[in-house]
């Protein structure tokens, strides 16, 4: 069973991402499961970027730790990444010095750019690199050629031919060298032509919003949420979605609230810093009981922090963001399939309860690609729940359920009066303190019903301990658990997508799991603290990472063993 990790490094703008993308597509056409992730600096050109492509014939959903094959597009790549190269790893590309003596890795010096010039254009360097890679890995070039035909179909036969030549050039160059390690046993291209899908986190979040029926999207670009905006705006004409780039996050959320008040299914997306600006608007949505979906793609902070890195540091912030109390949902999808389903549920639930739903994504989920043998829509989008009112319509009628029937302005004789001030049943502002109590209770009592709609965490039993996590860490925790179990350490897994509110059954259940170890991408253990608050029992075993990098399976396994020892 191959489990191979390839790292491609170079300057921003050198084609690191393109090589990763093309290679990934060829690999999935070969029947392999691919997981890829980008690591990049906050700059447009220069700096050091890398893409990691990990693949296997078995499903994988986590980043790899050690590199089998390192592709250096510049000198810097070798310096930065060679320490992660396995003892039997191979390094190709721009290599300046011999690998350090402690690393007996083999290397092949190839100058992709110069070879591309021979073909007449630097643009072919990326495909030459792909050719070299498939030759080293032992992948059937016919599959790669078919893929090139597919992607360059619109550009004409000459372009296809030149790209095939580039591919062959890369292969030929490798054949000149003696390669010390065999990666794949045989050229297995035709063996497993099963259909696989490669889905990125941001694309899945965008697709989920479209499937949910989103018709209005306003946002200010902010890494790592911008990819969602790009996905939705590229399809805005096809599906009829108003996408507006707001002047700031304050405008973005207020526009979305205005659109939702008028009946659109509206959302906005940002990262923690932008969410800070949206917080007043979050309270407005809550007080006016206007449905809204807000996506927070987390990155390290505070303030602008590490703009292109990952974090799980905003959980406590979004749980209590804005002043006073109001009900809200907080969800954190674990992978792209879950992101699609979660977005649909978010729109449905926001509409049903007339409350804000906050989705916590992060740079790891946003910028990674997962492979699935199938992707599905497991949730059904629902139409907006509105009523046709008459002159007696009252927007905030003190309904027993806490949910007042919602009419839309201009759709009937009903006048829809929404107010950010405390208000009476019609919607006019009031300073009647008894009415204030009734209105606050009306809003707050939704929480109990909301609890019933939240889903339990994923649970896999273990006898000695239970690793606990939330959001995008699922894949890493899953794999770490499997490997520990195989090594005879019987740990379980408890992983949250629906974080708030938690149902009473779930809270009771959580108390019963053996020795929980809470693993999070923050310093204080924010989920652990939430669980402590809700269950009244301590969650003192914790593993926290806050250096801007995701968890890695092997490192995490050691940390888990250390915590349990």
């Amino acid at each position, binding site marked *: 069973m191959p489990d191979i990790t390839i790292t491609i490094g170079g300057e921003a703008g050198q084609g690191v991402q393109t090589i990763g993308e093309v290679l990934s597509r060829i690999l999935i056409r070969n029947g392999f499961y691919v997981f890829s992730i980008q690591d990049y600096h906050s700059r447009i050109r220069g700096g050091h970027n890398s893409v990691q492509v990990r693949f296997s014939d078995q499903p994988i959903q986590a980043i790899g730790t050690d590199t089998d094959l390192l592709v250096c597009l510049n000198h810097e790549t070798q310096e930065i990444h060679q320490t992660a190269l396995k003892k039997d790893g191979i390094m190709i590309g721009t290599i300046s010095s011999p690998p350090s003596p402690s690393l007996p890795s083999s290397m092949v010096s190839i100058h992709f750019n110069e070879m591309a010039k021979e073909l007449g254009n630097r643009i072919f360097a990326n495909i030459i690199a792909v050719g070299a890679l498939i030759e080293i890995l032992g992948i059937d070039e016919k599959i790669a050629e078919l893929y090139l035909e597919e992607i360059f179909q619109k550009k004409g036969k000459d372009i296809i031919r030149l790209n095939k030549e580039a591919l062959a050039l890369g292969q030929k160059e490798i054949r000149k060298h003696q390669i010390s390690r065999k990666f794949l046993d045989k050229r297995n291209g035709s063996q497993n032509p099963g259909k696989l899908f490669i889905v990125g986190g941001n694309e899945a979040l965008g697709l989920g919003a479209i499937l949910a029926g989103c018709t209005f999207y306003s946002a200010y670009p902010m890494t790592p949420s911008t990819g969602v905006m790009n996905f939705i705006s590229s399809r805005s004409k096809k599906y009829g979605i108003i996408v507006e780039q*707001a002047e700031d996050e304050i*405008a973005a959320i*207020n526009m979305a609230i*205005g659109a939702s008040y008028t009946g659109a299914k509206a959302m906005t997306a940002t990262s923690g810093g932008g969410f800070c600006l949206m917080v007043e608007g979050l309270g407005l949505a809550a007080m006016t009981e206007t449905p809204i979906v807000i996506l927070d793609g987390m990155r390290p902070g505070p303030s602008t922090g590490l703009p292109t890195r990952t974090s799980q540091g905003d959980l406590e912030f979004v749980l209590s963001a804005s002043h006073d109390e109001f009900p809200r949902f907080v969800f954190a999808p674990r992978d792209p399939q879950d992101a699609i389903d979660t977005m649909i549920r978010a729109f449905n639930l926001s509409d049903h309860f007339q409350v804000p739903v906050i989705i916590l994504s992060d740079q790891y989920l946003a910028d990674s690609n997962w492979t699935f043998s199938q*992707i599905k829509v497991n949730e059904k989008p629902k139409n907006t729940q509105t009523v046709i009112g008459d002159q007696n319509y009252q927007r905030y009628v003190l309904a027993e359920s806490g949910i007042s029937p919602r009419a839309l302005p201009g759709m009937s004789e009903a006048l829809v*009066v929404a*107010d950010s001030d405390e208000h009476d049943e019609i919607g006019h502002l009031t300073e009647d303190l008894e009415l204030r109590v009734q209105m606050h209770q009306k809003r707050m009592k939704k929480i109990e019903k909301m609890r019933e709609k939240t889903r339990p965490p994923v649970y896999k039993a273990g006898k000695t301990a239970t690793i606990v996590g939330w959001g995008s860490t699922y894949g890493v925790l899953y794999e770490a658990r499997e490997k520990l179990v195989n090594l005879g350490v019987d740990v379980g897994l408890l992983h949250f997508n629906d974080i708030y509110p938690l149902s009473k059954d779930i809270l009771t259940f959580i108390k019963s799991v053996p020795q929980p170890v809470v693993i999070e991408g923050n310093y204080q253990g924010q989920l652990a603290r939430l669980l402590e608050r809700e269950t009244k029992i301590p969650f003192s075993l914790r593993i926290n990472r806050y250096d801007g990098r995701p968890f890695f399976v092997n490192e995490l396994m050691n940390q888990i063993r250390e915590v349990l020892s």
Partner: protein
Amino acid sequence: MFSFRNQLEIAWCPGCGNFNLLTALSEALVELGLKPSQVVLVSGIGQAAKAPHYIQANVFNGLHGRSIPVAFGIQSVNPELTVIAESGDGCMYGEGGNHLIHAIRRNPNITVIVHDNQVYGLTKGQASPTSEAGFVSKTQPLGTVSESFHPLALAVSQNASFVARGFAGDKEELKSIFKQAIQWKGFSLVDVLQPCVTFNRINTFGWYKSRVYSLPEDYDPEDQVGAFKISLEWGDKIPTGIIYRHSKPIFSDLVFEKLGRKEFLNPTRNYQSIFEDEKHGFE
């Protein structure tokens, strides 16, 4: 005759300039033949922002400074609605200044009415962006040193679609301006001089009355350079009326033209077929 005024008790000081403004707007809506259900009044925070509560229409009373983005969202989704954002100078020019600038750029079909009394009333008398330099208050005891903001000059310089000034002491002219602004297709800004009888002892009814004059009939509101000059006029003589208008495409028309669809509410998307279609992009 039907009135847009409702029966809610009004929380303004006796003699406040807001009253005439409220009457002028209510009458303008009636005279334009609009139905309350077709009208959405959006406001921010402050004494002026309470105005929509006293009018029989759809209301969205939001946050301080944020009425324009909300109004934009409403009008974009349902262009059939008559959308009016109404609030004070602190709300529209202070907290909301950035949104005003960008609304001019977007040109949504909304009318922005600013109750401009050159002072913060609800928080009891601080200087506002339009207070004149030297304005003395409890928070600016030495007199504010900042120059005052000129909303109309800004709007004209940015080629806003419709720019006007009214005076709360001249209800008939104000009503006429409101009617033109509401009927205008595009972003309309109406700055209304509206004395605060409690906290602004300088810019009183008398102060304005001795200065305001209606723009003459031969004034050409289509001439941007001339309009810019007029928009800067302030002091002994203060012009009222339509200062600038310039017809240009509105946001929702442009967007719907590009998107090629008009019905955004309850879209009949077949999510299953969309999914099947989009799925291929991931293969």
